[in-house]
């Protein structure tokens, strides 16, 4: 296990990752994000879909504006029916990896928070074929240990359910937690902007903590519509290597920030990010994606009149499970890279 003091970034990740905020119900995260961004922003507002926008003005006449985006929402579950037997049926919100569900500990956010456990049909009931597959969502339910009557009083259809997986340290500065996708990105942009402001950024910055990315990039598309930003940097997670994944689609933990290259990203922005990383000895890798990057950049690039994008991603193992695992060093690299990009953006006139 990693020993030693926690950095501000690690502490920030712990606070943000512990909050619950499934898509469409990000209020708790939005509150903390507004508070943290509010520490150095000139203006904070929330848009109709719940995304938090923080504007930091540099004070220069005609300064360019850079939009930073990371999504606040996490994958989770939603109660679809409350049985007379007290068991809850559910559906997934976002692309939950269903293989992790059996025997998972969860919290049901009803009239109050209730501890629960995901139960599946016991092995002795199943056929040989069923046994080879992960149980389907329809064959699982949530057990709260309460009677049917009591559950009906406390839980309604539509209540959200989050996974119990508080952040924990592994060896070598690695951490495991639910929701590093994308609280890691959110903490990185908040930290990057804070550092840039401290070092005298010469451009306006708009931080957008967006909602509902996991269910279709909904918050970012609407949030960026009226932005008028000259460029955007989106921060999300990408895959980190494990023994069983195809080599060319994942990055080593500790290899730094992954810079996205492809039609979704503006070539000049991508080139600048790489140049800055190389010059500053910031660990980074190149992540090539020929089309839809599966991130908010896909929506931001064509929002309103369009915003040129760059994409910086943090390698994460076991994405979309409650044990997402990442390297603090990679997050530090991403924060520093974006901070220097902001400073560089403010110094240049165009491109």
């Amino acid at each position, binding site marked *: 296990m990693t020993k030693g003091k926690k950095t501000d970034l690690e502490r920030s990740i712990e606070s943000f990752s512990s909050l619950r905020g499934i898509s469409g119900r990000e209020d708790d995260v939005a509150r903390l994000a507004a508070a943290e961004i509010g520490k150095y922003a000139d203006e904070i507002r929330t848009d109709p879909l719940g995304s938090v926008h923080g504007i930091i003005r540099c004070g220069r006449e005609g300064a360019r504006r850079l939009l930073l985006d990371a999504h606040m929402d996490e994958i989770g579950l939603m109660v679809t029916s409350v049985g007379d037997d007290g068991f809850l049926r559910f559906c997934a919100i976002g692309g939950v*990896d269903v293989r992790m569900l059996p025997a998972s500990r969860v919290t049901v956010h009803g009239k109050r928070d209730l501890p629960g456990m995901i139960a599946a049909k016991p092995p002795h009931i199943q056929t040989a074929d069923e046994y080879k597959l992960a149980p389907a969502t329809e064959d699982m339910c949530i057990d709260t240990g309460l009677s049917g009557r009591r559950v009906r009083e406390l839980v309604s259809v539509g209540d959200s359910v989050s996974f119990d997986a508080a952040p924990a340290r592994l060896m*070598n500065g690695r951490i495991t937690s639910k929701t590093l996708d994308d609280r890691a990105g959110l903490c990185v942009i908040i930290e990057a902007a804070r550092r840039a402001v401290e070092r005298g950024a010469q451009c306006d910055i708009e931080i957008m903590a967006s909602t509902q990315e996991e269910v279709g990039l909904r918050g970012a598309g609407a949030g960026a519509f009226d932005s008028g930003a000259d460029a955007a940097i989106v921060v999300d997670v990408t895959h980190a290597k494990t023994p069983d994944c195809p080599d060319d689609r994942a990055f080593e933990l500790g290899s730094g920030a992954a810079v996205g290259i492809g039609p979704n990203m503006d070539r000049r922005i991508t080139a600048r990010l790489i140049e800055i990383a190389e010059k500053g000895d910031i660990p980074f890798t190149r992540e090539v994606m020929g089309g839809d990057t599966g991130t908010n950049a896909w929506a931001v690039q064509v929002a309103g009149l369009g915003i040129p994008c760059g994409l910086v991603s943090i390698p994460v193992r076991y994405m979309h499970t409650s044990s997402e695992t990442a390297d603090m060093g990679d997050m530090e690299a991403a924060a520093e890279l974006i901070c220097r990009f902001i400073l560089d953006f403010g110094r240049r006139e165009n491109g």
Partner: protein
Amino acid sequence: MDRRLLRALCSAAGVSGDEGRVRDYIIDRLLPLGYPMEVDNIGNLTVSVTGRRRAGQRVMVCAHMDEVGLIIKSVDDNGFLRFETVGGIDPRVLPSKRVKVGDRGVTGVIGIAAIHLIKRGERRKAPPVEKLYIDIGAKDRDDALKAVNTGDYAAFEPDFSAMGGFIRSKALDDRVGAAAMIELIERGVEYDADFVFTVQEEVGLRGAAIAARRIEPDIAVVMETTTAADFPGVDVKSRITKAGGGVAISVMDRSTIYDRELVRLAVDTARRKGLAFQIKQGTAGGNDAGAIQRAALPVRMLALSVPCRGLHAPSSACSVRDIDAQRELCGALLEVIGGMKNA
């Protein structure tokens, strides 16, 4: 129910073959009472409790200390730990769960490749144990070996909590039984009895046979947990037991036909004392009673089990009502069975 006792027992790591921490806790706890305590050649802990009266029958009460878990088979070049299961675990409950590895309790997560990286048609396939691994954040093999070793045991991460009218935790099988025995020992008994905390039940009921051969009991009461398959859509006849329906009394299972008189006594006693009970349905499964029978000893057996949802999983749940009923029924029975006439 002594919640703190159960929490302490459940939180200790004691996978079959590595029960030392649980055994040490029990020894420390019971030492002040002054009863003779002995650890035998396989690791069972026997506490010989003197009753207020001399017994006509040799009575043995047992519960197993071990829990299902994992054992590290190898460390790959990238520092990931490959493992085998110890005890019967459905591999589908493993992905994404946290474990504590080795004596130092190093934190790890059980991993599989992210679902996005798997071909669409393969995504719902349940990965077999050989495809899973434990990630402790090591950089490579040498780095991992600084923290853990091949042969280390990995137990599920403890997370004991109340859940509605239930307790949710790892290892309720069978720390529930062990906790009941400790409470009864501390209360004191009417007739002498040997309380045996057995080892290696989960890998084939191995400890109990040795304890029984040493003690040669006339009567044995097994304090266990059993499956509660009271899941929506499961036929009533396949439920085995109903969680919250009271302590389950077994009539017959795969290895044992339980003593008729003892079963009748248990039912009558439960009724008399107003304790919730049920008869375990079906004849599947086995417990330490099977080991005792196989050891060729003519012991009259009784099994009292607490229904458990999610048996053999990183998180399981037992109803507080059932836990209390098991302990109280056993206590009530111990007041009389020592003085029973021969069959």
